[in-house]
């Protein structure tokens, strides 16, 4: 049991996909305008990661070595399509807000990266916890970034205004603010890593 918890926890801090591995930054930056979007994207990516990790771990011995990447992509794309259709049916507003970044989960480096680096070698249960950990780590990173951007860029958190007199800096809601923030956060995490 302890092993599984370890598998789960490593994705959150030690191997956080966003801040430590620097993977899957495109959707991170694009959808982190508000916390709701960030959570939605995080859950969608977690579902895809879980599904693809488990399925790939199940069929890893059946896949021929040379065509493994296309096989992984088909598995991943299937789960992305499931996510896309579910989101369209039950939460059209979120689907509109995330736009083309939902189908683009297919090419999210985290998903393919975990399939290639982990699920293709590990057992099903381990892959499950690895996928869950990575997904939660990704979601937490998204929440952190989108909370900072929503607060500083629009003066709100989850739609509420915590400080009335706060004058938001609009640039953080713009693309350039996202790039600046991720640059500073990556630098900050580098600094922490070095201090240790």
């Amino acid at each position, binding site marked *: 049991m302890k092993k599984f918890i370890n598998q789960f926890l490593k994705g959150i801090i030690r191997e956080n996909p966003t801040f430590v591995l*620097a*993977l899957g*930054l*495109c*959707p991170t*930056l*694009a959808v982190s305008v508000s916390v709701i979007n960030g959570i939605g994207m995080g859950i969608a990516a977690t579902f895809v990661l879980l599904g693809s990790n488990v399925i790939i771990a199940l069929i890893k011995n059946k896949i021929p070595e040379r065509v493994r*990447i*296309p096989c992984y*992509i*088909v598995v991943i*794309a*299937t789960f*992305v*399509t499931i996510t*896309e*259709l579910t989101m369209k049916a039950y939460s059209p507003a979120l689907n509109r807000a995330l736009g*083309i970044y939902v*189908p*683009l989960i*297919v*090419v*999210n*480096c985290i998903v*393919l990266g975990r399939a290639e680096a982990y699920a293709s070698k590990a057992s099903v249960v381990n892959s499950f916890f690895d996928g869950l950990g990575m997904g939660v780590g990704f979601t937490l990173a998204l929440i952190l970034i989108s909370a900072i951007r929503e607060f500083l860029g629009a003066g709100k958190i989850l739609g509420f205004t915590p400080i009335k007199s706060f004058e938001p800096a609009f*640039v953080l809601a*713009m*693309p*350039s*603010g*996202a*790039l*600046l923030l*991720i*640059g*500073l956060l*990556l*630098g*900050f995490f*580098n*600094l922490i890593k*070095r201090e240790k």
Partner: protein
Amino acid sequence: MDVTQFLTIFISAVFIYNVILSRFLGLCSFIAISKETRPALAMSLAVMFVTTMSSIITWFIYRFLLIPYNLTYLRTISFILVIATFVQFVEMVIRKISPPLYRFFGIYLPLITVNCAVLGVAVLNSEMFFANNKAVAGSFFYSTFQGICVGLGYTLAMLLMSGIRERLELCNIPKAVKDFPLAFIIASIMSLSFMGFNGFKF
């Protein structure tokens, strides 16, 4: 189909909604390969070629396979498969026909399969130039042109970035922000300046 439409696509794909600086597509390759100008140029040319070709191919698939048979929900899976196959095919052809070109593109070509810009432009085309599951007039030309323009926008951002980063090699940079973090901060300033194109009216 008229000229102003093409101009609009050009300006918006290259400047206003630049793939990298505003849409954040293909960010991984942008940060990883922009250290020197030559590889950056090779990557950009490869991306431009693939975005153009995949725009054309996915248009045909969408128009003549997915829409008539009511299979539009298979968009993601079919597009990514076609793109992956196409890239693999191009790689094989180039290796056979022109070894120098193959060395020039090197490892960058297979990387393009998972470049979000390529799938992104295909998905964008299918959303922008198809209304209610029907192709708008001239949608094939618009799609192809948008593919070229997205590639151009990628090249522009890539060349600017690699030029700046080559100069930065000689500077004294705090260790914590060296490489990736600094590249993002530079990209942020570039994106800020590209925001100036937002007010473009014609």
